[in-house]
C-alpha cells in the first residue's frame, strides 16, 4: 500500500480525538472509580425520603460505602422502601442507623449510616430498623412558626 503525506495527519487527528474522549471520560466523568466491586443489598423504610434519588451516595463518616439502588413505595406501611447496595468490603453492626442528610445548603441528599455497637453484622438482605427521615424545610418552618405563636400566646396570658 502506498503511503501518502496526509496519513500522518489523519492519524494525529484520530489520536487527538481519542485523547479528548479519554479526557472527557476520565477527568470529567471519573469512569475509573465506577464501582465494579461486588455489593450486597440492604433495605430500610423511611417516613419521608425528601429529595433522595437513585444512585445517591451512602456515606459513613463522610466516605462513600454504597449507593441507593432502588426507591419504592410500600402501601402496607405507607412508607418509602429504599434498597441500598453496599460495598462488600464494609460491614456494619446490626443496630446501625440510617439518616437522610444534605450535603451543603442546596446540595444533593445522601444517606448517612452510623455504626451501632451490636456484635453481629448486618447480613445481605437485612432491613435496617432505625431510620431518620429527611428534614423537610416546610415542616421545619411551620413547626418554628407554631412554636413562636405558642410562645407569644402563653407570654400574653401570663401578663
Amino acid at each position, binding site marked *: 500500500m502506498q503511503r*501518502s503525506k*496526509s*496519513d500522518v*495527519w*489523519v492519524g*494525529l*487527528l*484520530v489520536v*487527538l*480525538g481519542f*485523547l*479528548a*474522549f479519554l*479526557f*472527557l*471520560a476520565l*477527568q*470529567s*466523568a*471519573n*469512569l475509573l*472509580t*465506577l464501582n465494579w466491586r461486588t455489593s450486597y443489598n440492604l433495605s430500610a423504610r423511611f417516613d419521608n425520603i425528601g429529595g433522595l434519588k437513585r444512585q445517591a451516595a451512602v456515606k459513613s463518616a463522610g466516605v462513600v460505602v454504597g449507593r441507593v439502588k432502588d426507591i419504592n413505595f410500600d402501601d402496607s406501611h405507607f412508607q418509602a422502601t429504599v434498597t441500598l447496595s453496599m460495598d462488600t468490603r464494609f460491614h456494619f453492626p446490626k443496630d446501625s442507623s440510617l439518616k437522610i442528610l444534605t450535603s*451543603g*445548603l*442546596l446540595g444533593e441528599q445522601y444517606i448517612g449510616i452510623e455504626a451501632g455497637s451490636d456484635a453481629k453484622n448486618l447480613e445481605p438482605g437485612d432491613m435496617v430498623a432505625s431510620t431518620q427521615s429527611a428534614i423537610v424545610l416546610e415542616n421545619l418552618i411551620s413547626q418554628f412558626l407554631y412554636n413562636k405563636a405558642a410562645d407569644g400566646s402563653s407570654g400574653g396570658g401570663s401578663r
Partner: protein
Amino acid sequence: MIGFFKQVGQTTRLMLVALGLSYRLFVQMVRLFRPTMKRFRLVSEQMHFLGNYSLAIISVSGLFVGFVLGLQGYYTLQKYGSESALGLLVALSLVRELGPVVCALLFAGRAGTSLTAEIGLMKAGEQLSAMEMMGIDPVARILAPRFWAGVFTMPILAAVFSAMGIIGGWIVGVLMIGIDAGSFWGQMQGGVDVFKDVLNGVIKSFIFGVTVTFIALYQGFEAQPTPEGVSRSTTSTVVVASLFVLGLDFMLTAFMFSL
C-alpha cells in the same frame, strides 16, 4: 387567483421532489458504506481535508467558549455562594449541549461550505458528467467518501471542542478567579455521568455529522451548474444545516434526557 394556486402546487411538488431525491441519495450513500471502506484511502484524504484543517478553528472556539462559560457561570453561581459547582456547570453544558451543537455549526461553516462549493464546481465544470461517461459512479467515487469522512470526523471534533472548553473553564475558574481546584474537578466528576452525559453527547455529534455532511453534499450535487447557482447552494448549505442542527438538537435532547 389560479396563478396563485398553480404556484403553491408547483412549490409543494418541487419540495416533495427534493425530499424524495435527497432520501434516495442518502440511502445510496449508506448502502455504499462497505465499498467505500474498501477504498479507505479516499476517506482518509477527506478526513484530512475536513478534520485537520477544521482543528484550529474548533479548538480555539472551544477554548473561548470555555472562557466565557467560566466567567458567566461564576457570575451566576457566586450569587448563591456555590461557585465550587463551576466545574460541573462548564462540563455539563459543554458535554451535553454546546460541544456537539456549536461544533456542528462551525463544521457547517468551515467544512460544509467547501464541500458544497467543490462538488458544485465539479458539476458546473461537467466533471461529474464526464465521470459518468467513463462508467464511474460519481456518488460512489466522489460523494460517499466525503460523506463517511464527515461522519467520522464530527464526533472527534466535538470531543476536542468539549475538552478544550473544559480546559478553558479551568483556566478562568481556577487560574484566574481562584476557585479551589479540588472542588472544581471533584464536583465535575461527581455530576457528569459517562453514559448519560458523555455518550449521549457523542451520539448527538454523530447524528449532526450525518446531517451537516449530507446537506452540504446534497446542496452541491443539486446545485445549478452556474457560478450563481453554486454560490446560492453554498449559502443554503449554511442556512439549512444550521436550522436542521438546532431543530434536531431540541428533538434529540427531549428524547435522550427524558428517558
